[in-house]
């Protein structure tokens, strides 16, 4: 038996005090250590790829844990988890490198990097465990470091934003805990896969409440309208590397949890019932509302980071819409929709991370936030400009950038659904309109910030480009976004192994 996943989990755990100690000597080396840890974890988790592509489609490690509770401590990766874990590590790598220059001169950086490492533990834990108790533990573990990072190293009224973030997501977590407790009460198992089997014997009338509680809890993390209120503040006030992680993986964790627990584990019980169909329709409606709401505000907003934040809400709407397409009302799985949705979580995560990092670079160089005060700096910041354009057009859904292909497959799923369920005609049509709006705010961002006449006055410096580690981080993500856009099979092959059954 190998210990790959356990070491992926333990490596950052052990590294937390180590990063702290190194950070007291030199913040730069702490960041490099964190980057190395992400890189090694990435390498470790990639060794499981051949097992996932193999006949089992899953790689598992089981340890005994609290036998009284009849609980096994099981770690696993399948096509979805490993995709999530990969973007987590890539984004953490980029964020750590980026912070070297970006956070320079800030206080208490050893704590900052230790908290980031702790955040990595929580994120990895959420994505690779099948034990619901441990899942919840990690779910909360994501929240705590995020709260302190946003509050302590953020901008303007950061503790207020951070408090809002904490209160909202914690309230969501209560629902998650209720749901997990209910799963344990009904099945006497807290293992995801056992529960999946055991729940099927339960009555749909009870399970529907579990489904609703869990989905509501995860939706808060995903920032679906109307529980999105924490997101714009938290995203826009936090330091850029943290924004990238929040936008790239923390909200994605919500989407992952909806797919993994709500849809894969709990939903099959109510599948085929009227409630099941209504539930999916509800998801679609909330998805469409979020997509529109986010796009419209992103079109009206003038704050650099708030535009990106609202575009996040909009894209979470796409993902939720994609999730609603997973099962037909007859209970068949629409594979294209699953592939598109999961791929969209990946592509959106990377693009949004890149978007926030480039926004951070702009703020770093210009010390401005309002896009109306900028303009005409494409020539002064060529690499940041390229990175921003890549991110903006990816978010806007233009090929050859990554988000295009995933959006495309979500729509392919939608069109497969329409003949089976006429309800989906209008949501799909509206989502098509939303793609035009996405492109609209992306173009507005680019033309206001980088193109047009400069409103900055005379710039004496020849170049406003940011220091090299920030550039390196942005280049890494840019390359990822373009490569996935051209050759999506990198993730598609992994995701397509998921059958849910």
């Amino acid at each position, binding site marked *: 038996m190998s210990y790959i996943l356990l070491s992926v989990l333990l490596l950052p755990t052990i590294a937390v005090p180590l990063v702290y100690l190194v950070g007291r000597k030199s913040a730069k080396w702490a960041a490099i250590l964190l980057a190395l840890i992400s890189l090694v974890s990435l390498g470790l988790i990639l060794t499981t790829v051949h097992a996932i592509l193999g006949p089992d489609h899953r790689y598992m490690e089981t340890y005994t844990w609290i036998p009284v509770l009849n609980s096994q401590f099981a770690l696993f990766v399948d096509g979805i988890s490993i995709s999530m874990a990969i973007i987590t590590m890539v984004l953490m790598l980029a964020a750590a490198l980026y912070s070297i220059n970006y956070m320079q001169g800030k206080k208490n950086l050893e704590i900052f990097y230790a908290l980031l490492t702790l955040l990595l533990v929580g994120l990895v834990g959420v994505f690779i465990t099948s034990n619901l108790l441990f899942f919840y533990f990690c779910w909360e573990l994501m929240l705590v470091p995020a709260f302190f990072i946003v509050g302590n190293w953020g901008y303007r009224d950061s503790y207020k934003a951070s408090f809002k973030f904490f209160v909202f997501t914690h309230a969501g977590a209560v629902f998650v805990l209720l749901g997990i407790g209910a799963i344990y009460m009904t099945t006497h198992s807290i293992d995801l896969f056992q529960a999946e089997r055991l729940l099927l014997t339960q009555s749909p009338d009870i399970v529907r409440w579990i489904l609703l509680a869990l989905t509501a809890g995860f939706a808060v993390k995903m920032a679906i309208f109307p529980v999105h209120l924490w997101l714009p503040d938290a995203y826009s006030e936090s330091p850029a590397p943290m924004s990238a992680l929040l936008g790239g993986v923390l909200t994605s964790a919500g989407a992952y949890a909806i797919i993994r627990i709500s849809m894969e584990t709990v939903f099959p019980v109510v599948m085929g019932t009227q409630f099941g169909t209504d539930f999916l329709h509800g998801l679609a409606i909330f998805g469409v509302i979020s997509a529109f709401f986010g796009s419209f*505000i992103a*079109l009206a907003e003038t704050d650099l980071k708030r535009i990106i934040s609202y575009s996040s809400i909009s894209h979470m709407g796409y993902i939720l819409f994609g999730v609603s397409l997973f099962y037909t009302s007859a209970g068949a799985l629409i594979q294209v929709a699953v592939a598109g949705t999961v791929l969209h979580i990946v592509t959106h995560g990377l693009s949004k991370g890149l978007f926030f990092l480039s926004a951070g670079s702009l703020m770093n160089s210009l010390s401005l936030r309002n896009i109306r005060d900028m303009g005409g700096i494409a020539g002064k910041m060529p690499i940041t400009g390229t990175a921003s354009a890549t991110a903006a057009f990816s978010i806007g859904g*233009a*090929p050859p950038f990554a988000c295009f*292909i995933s959006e495309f497959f979500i729509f392919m799923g939608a069109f497969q659904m329409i003949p089976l369920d006429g309800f989906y005609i209008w949501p799909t*049509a509206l989502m098509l309109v939303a793609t035009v709006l996405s492109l609209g705010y992306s*173009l*507005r961002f680019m033309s206001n910030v980088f*193109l047009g006449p400069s409103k900055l006055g005379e710039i004496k410096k020849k170049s406003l480009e940011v220091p090299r580690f920030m550039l390196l981080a942005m280049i890494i993500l840019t390359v990822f976004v373009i490569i996935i856009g051209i050759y999506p099979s990198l993730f598609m092959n992994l995701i397509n192994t998921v059958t849910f059954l």
Partner: protein
Amino acid sequence: MLADVTSWLVWIFPLVSSVFVPLIARAGEKARNAFVIGVTAVTASLALTLIPAASSGEGGAINLVAPWISQAITAGVYIDPLSVLFTCLVGFFGLIIAIYSLGYMKHEENLTRYYFYLLLFIGSMIGLVISDNFLQLFIFWEMVGLCSYSLISFWNNRPESVKAGNKVFIMTRIGDASLLAAVGILYASLNTFSFHGTITAILNGTLPSSTLTVVAFLVLGGAIAKSAQLPLHTWLYSAMEAPTSISALLHAATMVKAGVYLIARFILIAAPMIAVLEGSWLPTVAWIGVLTAFLGATMALYTPDIKGVLAYSTVSQLGFMMAALGTSLAASESLGWFASLFHTMSHAFFEGLGFLLAGGIIHALGTRDMRLMGGLRKAMPVTYALAIIMILTTSGLPPFAAFFSKGLIITSITEEGSLLQVILIYATTAITFAYSLRFVKLIFLGKESEHLQKLHPHEAPKIMLAPAFVLAVACLIWGFLEPWLGSYMGVAEVPSLLSSFVGLETAIFAVILIPAGLLIYAAYWKNYSIMNSLRSASNPLAKLLSHGYFFDDFYEKVVAKGVMLFSRGVKFFEVVFLEIFPMVFANMVIRFAGGVHKYFEAAADQLLTVIAGRTVDSAAKVKTLDSLADRFLDIIARHTLRSASRAEGSSSSLQHYLAAALLGFIVLVILLIISVGV
């Protein structure tokens, strides 16, 4: 086989090479320019090598695939006469424009970006026409939009360019959403993206005819936006903010021709079921084409912008192509289908020529306003001569290319279309002649304008004239290649060359060109009051034309403003109802609770005071109770002391209890650990 390799290379090579432009630019400008010319030349020759492969396909297309997204979703190339025709067009124009750019863009900055996007543009367009499936086609379809956005807003410190770029991207995106829906529906019903699979399914009749109709209309939506047809034609005029070399490329080969290609390709794919589309779809295509042709031509009559005339001319000519496609009934055997493609090529030559000349003129004069020009024939004689060839071709006079292609289109419309369509298309031909003459009159004829006298313009440099010269020659000879192209495209019945010369169309042409000539003569050479009043800005007709039938006003002032206003409304809603309102509500609750708290505290205080006062009062009054109270206090004190001493004892026993409990807990933990089996 050679074609196996070249059909992949022809689009991958320019795409990959584009990435190297910034790297090679470090070696110097000369190296970069040489590289770009080299790449475009290689691409053009690769495109030419495909010609024999397509004709040897014996009716069937060569279809090569490679694994891409999954086993079922592959990347591939599709070689048939249609795709090769467009590939050659794009390859040829890529080379022409790259050479022209050397002269035209000589003094510009940021040329590395320019050439990067130029190669990307060429590669994407070839990729679009050579794709063997709808997914790949759609990706390149969008990439062409992205490249045109980047190139139209190339002078990105000019707000007009940036605005035009955004407009182009957004407007074509509306069509893209429509095409996406079409692709989605096809994929949902056939579970394949590939042309080959779709054709097979249509042949077997697995595609319901209602689905095919819906798909056809959605495809048309995509083509309308990309090919600037009514009502989404306005972006093409705005796209004139691009460098002129890019305008030439955009109009002649890339971007706008994509819509024509798509419809032509779709007709080929749907050929076995074309009867389904006969009822509503084909007439719609034809009507959109005819109306666009007519309205585009009328707008070209009025605009003062030298590139504006050419832009509206393109809109109008694209209308001709669409109209021809709409009248093609029996697919590839059909005249209309072939006429449209034939005209696509001739339009590329004369419109490309027009833009190259306009570029030279703008270069020399530094303005696009034709009202400031005039009398340029002396200063730029070569340009003048080439412009004459250009307008003769545009108007469709023999023996130039457009005479043959327009003749075919009109024949096709006469055969299949309605009478009104025929009348409109003839009227359009007359107006075309009129605006072409106006173009030459305003720029070259007459006296030298004041603007000109100040400038002392000179002839365009040789490197810009040479490509124009090549195109002029193409205009001259292309028409005579009609029989060859007909047999190459596999079209059985193409009217012979001779009949084109002496046919009915020629006669009608000649007749209708006379009123057009008279019209223009009256409007510009003579000073008739009725014509002057028509041209004055206050005339409603003039207003209508100068505003382009108010399409743009509607889009910019109603649609775009409306969306922005609505966004602000949504933001306001968010701020007021979702941010402030809950905050106010929470504050109210807190304040209310505070008020209640204060009120109760005051009330309690008062109550206590009252009770205390009463007690004191009554105590003072009842003096007899005094001694009683003294004794009572004594008793209480004694009791308290006694109970205090008792409490001391019990507190010491509490410690014992605590110790016992702790011991028990430890034992429990030990038991637990043993049972766990660590």
